[in-house]
């Protein structure tokens, strides 16, 4: 059974949308969607994450249509992006104490362990964190609620090369230990080809199939 499947997904309304996108993702791999800014990468993620149905067609998560199941699927999806919201003036620990309660199973000890392993202080305020630290904190948050799918929207953009290597090493370790799939988007083709398992190109809302990264 695939973790995530898009079946003939088209954008709705006048706004920019995807055009007849179909694909499926298997567990244990890093998938990447590459494309220029405005090609539809974030739109694709929004279709999965939004409570409102912004598309026609079907999106299946772990075999079930996601329509009307926002709260259930969000228990198993970790979203890592600059767009993700946290309390700015609260620490990594306070954010988890406040927001972790929304999940069916949020493991605070695992969260603390992950933060420690990633070198992020649990007492540092969110707005004082560097971009890299924010991404790591979000990753620790996603690990703590036992996500089976990580959606990373331009998560590596603006990170220095050392942070990027560290992040991909962390993802590889996570993939080896847990039943996790990563779907990331980026406009950096070189980075994608080097660090991911499968890549697809998106352009003007149209997406080709995933092929093995070089």
């Amino acid at each position, binding site marked *: 059974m695939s973790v995530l499947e898009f079946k003939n997904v088209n954008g709705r309304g006048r706004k920019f949308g995807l055009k007849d996108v179909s694909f499926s993702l298997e567990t244990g791999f890093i998938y990447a969607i590459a494309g220029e800014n405005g090609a539809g990468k974030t739109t694709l993620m929004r279709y999965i*994450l*939004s*409570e409102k149905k912004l598309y026609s067609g079907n999106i299946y998560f772990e075999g079930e249509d996601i329509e009307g199941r*926002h*709260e*259930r*699927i*969000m*228990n198993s999806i970790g*979203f890592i992006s600059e767009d*993700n*919201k*946290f*309390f*700015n*003036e*609260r620490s990594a620990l*306070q954010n988890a*104490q*406040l*927001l972790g*309660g*929304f*999940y*069916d199973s949020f493991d605070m000890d695992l969260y603390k362990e992950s933060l420690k392993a990633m070198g992020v202080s649990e007492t540092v305020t969110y707005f004082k964190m560097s971009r890299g630290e924010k991404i790591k904190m979000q990753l620790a948050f996603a690990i703590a609620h036992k996500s089976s799918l990580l959606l990373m929207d331009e998560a590596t953009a603006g990170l220095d090369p050392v942070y990027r290597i560290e992040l991909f090493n962390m993802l590889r370790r996570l993939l080896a230990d847990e039943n996790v799939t990563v779907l990331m988007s980026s406009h950096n083709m070189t980075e994608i080809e080097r660090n991911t398992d499968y890549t697809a190109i998106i352009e003007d809302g149209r997406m080709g199939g995933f092929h093995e990264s070089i």
Partner: protein
Amino acid sequence: MKAFKEDRSQQEKIAAFFKEETTYFPNHVLGKAAACILVSISSILLIIPFAEYENDMRMVIVYGFMLYAMGMFSYGTKYASYTEPLTKKVFSISNLTKYLPVSHRQLTIFRIKKVLKPCVIVTAVVVGIRCLYSVAVSGGVSIWDFVLPAAFMIVLPAIVELTRG
């Protein structure tokens, strides 16, 4: 009515969040105070029975309902937005929770329930005093002494909360 179906598990999580959230953001005191003042003033204006309405009086009633709606909106703000303590920037709770396993619909239901509770109490008090006043002044009670407060003091705040982001 399916849209208003309550999910008990989510409602409990939302309630726990707001209980915890106040420990970090005890800055809704002003909102509550504003709500108390506005609702108190409007309640005094709204106890005038329907039979006593004249042209000038009608405007007083309109102001009364407006102040009441503003007061209840102010009270509901605690469940719709939060303020960062240092920068004083205001953020929407719907926006904060949009990638969390909680439905916007359930947040709205929670907020409406929270706002309706004081609405029902205030309305009951206002209607009670209106009826006593009406009996004392005109010897009877008009149907409007019930319909108007119910429509404006319960239904209106619920609609406002329903349409709030």
